[in-house]
């Protein structure tokens, strides 16, 4: 993904409460996520998702917001193919997941999706570099190559000087940046983060969000669940969830994005 494509992508779709708006986008923009009428019911009759439609194009940075228990994590799990919907269709990176076996879904995650969790889930006692390399373990790359790319990814998240540090020798924010490096080391088509700043103080949270913005500028497609309205307000697109349904899908003007002025109806024009 080039930087240029990423910008077009975010510009093209961030406006869209309606899918028609984005259909005018250039044909070169790929759709990374496409959900239609997705429903998820848990045993016991809890309907965590009730008919969700969601489309995410390559290069977008969107926030998923909503009250506790509204179904945000459930949605993220389904988008991340960790769970299958009860009804509805899910296509990730062009693959219809209902037609994929568990093995194929694993391969899809290994090749196309990166996850960041609120509680980092780093392997304790293992250096930052090895933790990041673990993100490529199921990619089929050689050991040496995994280690080389892990070093690059750590550099990318600004932790080039912490390669040998183990998780307990890192601050919360640094741990989350290691986790982000692990998620992006495989250059996934989609980065999913469930409250990545939830366990961090505001300064560390700022740094993590700045990193996500940075990665997005470089072309990464990112979906972030957040409770922090301030953080959400700065994201180019917000999807609001309530009681398992999408109640709003709005685009904000990216703070630093000078080239894409919002139009009067909230839809921005597409940069040529």
């Amino acid at each position, binding site marked *: 993904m080039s930087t240029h494509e990423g910008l077009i992508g975010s510009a093209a779709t961030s406006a869209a409460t309606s899918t028609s708006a984005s259909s005018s986008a250039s044909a070169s923009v*790929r*759709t990374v996520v496409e959900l239609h009428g997705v429903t998820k019911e848990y045993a016991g009759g809890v309907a965590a998702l009730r008919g969700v439609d969601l489309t995410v194009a390559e290069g977008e940075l969107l926030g998923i917001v909503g009250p506790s228990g509204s179904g945000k994590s459930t949605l993220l*799990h389904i988008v991340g193919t960790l769970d299958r919907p009860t009804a509805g269709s899910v296509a990730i990176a062009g693959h219809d997941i209902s037609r994929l076996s568990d093995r*194929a879904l694993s391969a*899809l995650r*290994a090749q196309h999706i990166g996850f960041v969790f*609120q509680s980092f889930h780093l392997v304790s*006692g*293992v250096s930052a570099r090895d933790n990041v390399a673990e993100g490529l373990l*199921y990619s089929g790359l050689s050991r040496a190559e995994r280690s080389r790319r892990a070093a690059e990814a750590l550099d990318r998240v600004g932790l080039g000087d912490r390669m040998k540090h183990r998780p307990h020798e890192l601050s919360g924010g640094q741990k989350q940046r290691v986790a982000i490096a692990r998620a992006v080391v495989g250059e996934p088509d989609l980065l999913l983060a469930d409250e990545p700043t939830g366990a961090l103080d505001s300064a560390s949270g700022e740094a993590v969000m700045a990193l996500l913005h940075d990665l997005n500028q470089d072309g990464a497609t990112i979906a972030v669940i957040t409770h922090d309205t301030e953080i959400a307000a700065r994201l180019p697109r917000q999807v609001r969830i309530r009681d398992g349904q999408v109640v709003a899908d709005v685009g904000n003007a990216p703070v630093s994005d000078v080239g894409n002025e919002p139009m009067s109806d909230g839809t921005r024009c597409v940069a040529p």
Partner: protein
Amino acid sequence: MTVTRRNRGKLSPARLGPRDVLHVGAAGLRSRPVRVVLSSLGIAIGIATMIAVVGISASSQAQLLRKLDALGTNMLVVTPGEEMFSGQDTKLPETAPGMVGQIKGVEQVGATGDVDHSARRSEKIDEDETNGITVKAAQGKLLETLRGTMRSGSWLNEATGRYPSVVLGHVTARRLGVTEPGQQVFIGGRYFTVTGILDPLPLAPEIERSALVGWDAAEQYLGFDGHPTSVYERSADGTVDAVRELLAPTVNPENPQAVAVTDPSAALQAKAATEGAFSTLLLGLGGIALLVGGVGVANTMIISVLERRHEIGLRRSLGATKGQIRVQFVAESLLLSGLGGLAGVALGAAATAVYASSGGMPWVVPPWAVGGGFGATLVIGTIAGLYPAVRAAHLSPTLALQTA
């Protein structure tokens, strides 16, 4: 909306190489060394017991075989057989030792003849108190034929054989309380001077319990009739069977049935065979320890899976297939039991070494026992790890990732 269904080829998971399997399998062990030691201890004890049981019996057997090798299996003993009709004990002809010496292949000949007297420490002791000791006349190269050695003093020679001198078997010396040459023993109404004491003679226990006097001295002082009771001969290894056939007809041409020929090494060979058969009871105990060890490993693995739910969820999110999660935990279980097995083999071999060196035995640990024991741990490791591994693989990734 342009939905570009770019098909990037079939989605198939990458294979984990053997080194990566080892890496993920060892991941759970590195962080908990104490648990690793404790849970593989059961397996180690089981394998150690089995290796030690097999090793110790193999060492004892090796020692017996070595002894047998030193003693040789080429010695035969000629004794009087039972008279067919009268049932009386017959006597060997006086010429028997000389005739045996004529047989082709015979290299050494010695003979003893029973003397009807008891050996006592002094005249004050009752004549009937034999202590199980017999007095024998000795002739020819008896000591060489038996491959015997002197513990102290010297064997009978031309000179001492004619005088009241006596050589004692080691059992005789102990029973009579004779500790060194020069002391006296009372036989047939006179004192004999002890000139030497023999080392143990595994091939001729009857001589260990004898007091040996020279052939001439026995005839002169003790009324010995000159008939040998046992003729010992040693022949070249390849001729033993041929010599065995010829012994009886040579010693007593008229009545070969009245001559018995025995092979004293046969008993030792049989003993060596039984030494090799280890105690199945002890082996069974080792097996039970091994089984208990296996249960311990299975238990540890179940706990490990419970504790590492997050890691399992994380690995699934990173793209691990169910199969790869299964392989990871089976590998961990195999490592756990394999470490126990290695420690057990080392421990069992060490125990065998201690036992062998304290008994002056050669140190033998049969390779099949090592291979079998280690193979058993791998089978146990697989079985113990399979159920926890299947559970780990079936864990829902979303549940595993929940921070609870």
